[in-house]
C-alpha cells in the first residue's frame, strides 16, 4: 500500500449560473480527492461541466452570476473561506492552471521571459534580478525550449503552438505548485506535439511530485496518463474509477456509450460504430431522475426509477469504482465486462 497524501479535497461542489434564460446547473454535487504525485482525469463531452469544475478550484467563476456551494480544501486550507490575499497566495504557489489555448493565457505585448519572471515575482517579491533571470532560464530549460537565453526575449507570436503551451506550463510551474490543473491542454495541438506536451507534464510530475487534474474529452489521453478517472455527464460525476477498471469493466451506461463510440487505430473495430442516440440535455432544463435516461438503452429495466430518482454514486463492480445508475450490480458487471473487452 502506498501512503496517500490528499492535496485537494472537493466535497459536494455545485455551481449554477444565472442567465437571461434561467438558471444553468453547470456542476452538481461533485466530490473527489486529488493525491500528491497522482493524476486524476476528468472526461466528458462538451458542456458536461469540466471547465466550470476546474475554475471553481481556483475560484475563477464569475462571482456575480455564479452561485457555488460545497467545500474545496487545498492542502488543508478552506478555499471557499479564503480572503483575497490568501487566494492570491494559493493561486500559483498551491494550485496553477493551464488552459486549452496558450495564446489566451499569454500577453502578446510582453516577452515570454518577462511573463515567466512576473509570475515568479508575485510570490518572490524580494528576489534579486539575477535570481529571477536564472529562474526564467531554468524554467524554459525544464520545459524543453531550445536556446532559452535568447528565446526568453521573444514574444508569444514568435513561437509555435506547442512551444507556447510549454511556456504556459513554465509560467504555471515557476512557483512549484502542489497541484496543476490542466484543462484540455493538448486539444488544440497536433498529435505529435500533444505527445510531447503530455510527456513533459508527466516527467515534471515525476520530478516534483505535483498532483495533476487533467481535463479532456479524449479517452485516449485519459488512458495514457490518468490514474483515476471521473466521467462527467450533464454536470454530474456518473462514474468514478481506476483507469484500468474504467476500460476493463466500465460501470455506467454513459461510459459504455463513450467507449463504444471511439474509433481506433485497430481495424478490428471497423464497421458500424456504436452510438449514443440523441444529444446531451440542456442544463437549463435537466431531465428528471437520471439526466442520462432519455438516451439510455437500459432505462426501461428499473421500474420507472430512472425517470424519477437521481441515482447516487455506489460501488457496482470493481472495488475502487462507483457509478450513479439504477441498474443492479450483477447486470452492470455483466454488460461492463462485455463493453470492456
Amino acid at each position, binding site marked *: 500500500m502506498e501512503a496517500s497524501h490528499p492535496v485537494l479535497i472537493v466535497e459536494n461542489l455545485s455551481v449554477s449560473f444565472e442567465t437571461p434564460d434561467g438558471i444553468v446547473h453547470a456542476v452538481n454535487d461533485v466530490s473527489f480527492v486529488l493525491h500528491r504525485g497522482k493524476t486524476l482525469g476528468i472526461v466528458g463531452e462538451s458542456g458536461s461541466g469540466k471547465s466550470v469544475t476546474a475554475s471553481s478550484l481556483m475560484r475563477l467563476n464569475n462571482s456575480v452570476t455564479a452561485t457555488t456551494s460545497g467545500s474545496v480544501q487545498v492542502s488543508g486550507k478552506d478555499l471557499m473561506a479564503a480572503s483575497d490575499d490568501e487566494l492570491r497566495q494559493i493561486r500559483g504557489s498551491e494550485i496553477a492552471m493551464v488552459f486549452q489555448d496558450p495564446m489566451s493565457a499569454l500577453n502578446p505585448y510582453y516577452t515570454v521571459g518577462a511573463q515567466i519572471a512576473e509570475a515568479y515575482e508575485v510570490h518572490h517579491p524580494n528576489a534579486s534580478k539575477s535570481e529571477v533571470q536564472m529562474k526564467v532560464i531554468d524554467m524554459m530549460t525544464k520545459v524543453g525550449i531550445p536556446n532559452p537565453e535568447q528565446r526568453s526575449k521573444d514574444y508569444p507570436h514568435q513561437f509555435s503552438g506547442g512551444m507556447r503551451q510549454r511556456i504556459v506550463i513554465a509560467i504555471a510551474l515557476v512557483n512549484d505548485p502542489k497541484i496543476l490543473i490542466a484543462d484540455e491542454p493538448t486539444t488544440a495541438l497536433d498529435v505529435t506535439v500533444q505527445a510531447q506536451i503530455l510527456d513533459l507534464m508527466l516527467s515534471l510530475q515525476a520530478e516534483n511530485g505535483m498532483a495533476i487534474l487533467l481535463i479532456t474529452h479524449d479517452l485516449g489521453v485519459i488512458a495514457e496518463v490518468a490514474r483515476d478517472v471521473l466521467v462527467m455527464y450533464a454536470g454530474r460525476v456518473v462514474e468514478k474509477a481506476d483507469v484500468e477498471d474504467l476500460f476493463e469493466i466500465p460501470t455506467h451506461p454513459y461510459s459504455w456509450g463513450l467507449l463504444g463510440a471511439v474509433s481506433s487505430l485497430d481495424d478490428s*473495430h471497423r464497421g458500424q460504430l456504436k452510438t449514443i442516440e440523441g444529444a446531451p440535455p440542456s442544463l437549463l432544463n435537466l431531465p428528471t431522475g437520471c439526466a442520462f435516461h432519455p438516451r439510455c438503452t437500459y432505462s426501461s429495466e428499473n421500474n420507472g426509477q430512472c425517470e424519477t430518482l437521481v441515482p447516487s454514486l455506489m460501488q457496482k463492480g470493481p472495488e475502487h469504482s462507483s457509478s450513479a445508475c439504477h441498474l443492479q450490480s450483477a447486470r452492470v458487471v455483466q454488460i461492463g465486462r462485455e463493453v470492456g473487452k
Partner: protein
Amino acid sequence: MSKPIALEVRNLVKYFPTGHKGFLGRPSQELKAVDGVSFVLSKGETLGIVGESGCGKSTLARLITRLLDPSSGQVILDSQDITHLRGRRLRDVRRQIQMIFQDPYSSLNPRHSVGQIISAPLEVQGIVSGDELMSRVREMMALVGLNPEHYNRYPHEFSGGQRQRIGIARSLILNPSVIIADEPVSALDVSIQAQILNLLEKLQQDLGLSFIFIAHDLSVVRHIADKVAVMYLGKIVEMGPSSAVYGRSLHPYTTALLSAVPVANPKKRGASGRIRLQGDVPSPVNPPSGCRFRTRCWKASELCASHEPPLIDMGEGHLVACHHPMEPSEGAGKPPVER
C-alpha cells in the same frame, strides 16, 4: 483489373504569394501549400487524407473543388480535365463534386431556414422549383436523419450533430458523384462523431459515392477509409490501402504519427518502441531541401538533404517517398496498437 476512376489529380501545385511585395510588385516569397500531389480515386472508394495542421489538406480540397485555381497541375473528373473550366461548364462540374466542411456552425447561414439552406444549390443551378424543390428537400432531410417537418427551423435550433447533418443534406441535394469532406467530425463530441461517421458510411454505400475524407484524426480515418494518403509539408509522403499504411507504415513520418496517437487502452501505456518527434514542422515558405521531413527524421542521411525521394510503389499499391523506408525489424511490421 482496376476499378473505374472517379477522380484523378495530377501533379497539383498551389503556391500562395506571401511576404512584402518586392521590386516591380512581385511577391518576395511563395508559400508552398500543395507541392506536386497526384492520386487516383476509384469509383465508390473512400480516400482518407491525413497529416498535421498546415500540411495542405484544406488547400488540396479547395483545389479539387475548384474553389481555388492551382498554380499548376490537373484535376480530372470522369475523364474530363476540369482544371480550367469556367462559367456554365464549371457549374456543371460543381454539381458533381460537393464539399462538407468542418464547422457546422459557421458554414450555415444563420438567417436562412434549413429548407432554404438545403435547397440553395438547387436554386443556384436553376433546375427545379416550387413543389418539387420542397419534396426534394424533405426527402434529403429524411435521408440524413433529420425530421422533414423541421424544414422551417433555423440553424441555431439544432444541435452540433444535427447541423452537420444539414451540411451533409446540402452537399447531397445535387446528386454528386464525389464528396470531399474536410474534417467533417472534428468539431463534434465522440458520441456525435460516431453518429455522423455511421451516416456517411451508409450514404456512401446507398448512393455509391466516391469519397475524399480529410482529417487530422488518424483513428477516424482508419475507421472510414479504404485507402489513405499521408501528407507532410504539401506533399504526399505515403499512400496505400489503409490496412497496409496503418499496419506496415513505410515512411518514418507515418510511423511517428501513428505512434503518437493516444491508445484508449491503459494496459498499452508507455510501451517501448514509441517514437517522439522533436521540434516543429518547418515553414512551407522555405521547406528543407531534399526530403522535407529530414530535419525531424532520425534516419536522415546526406542523400536525404541532397535528393528529393520520389513517391515509389513498393508493391500492391503501397507508395512511399523515402530513401530509407522502415524495415519490419524496426517495429513497422506490427500495428502500433501492439507496441
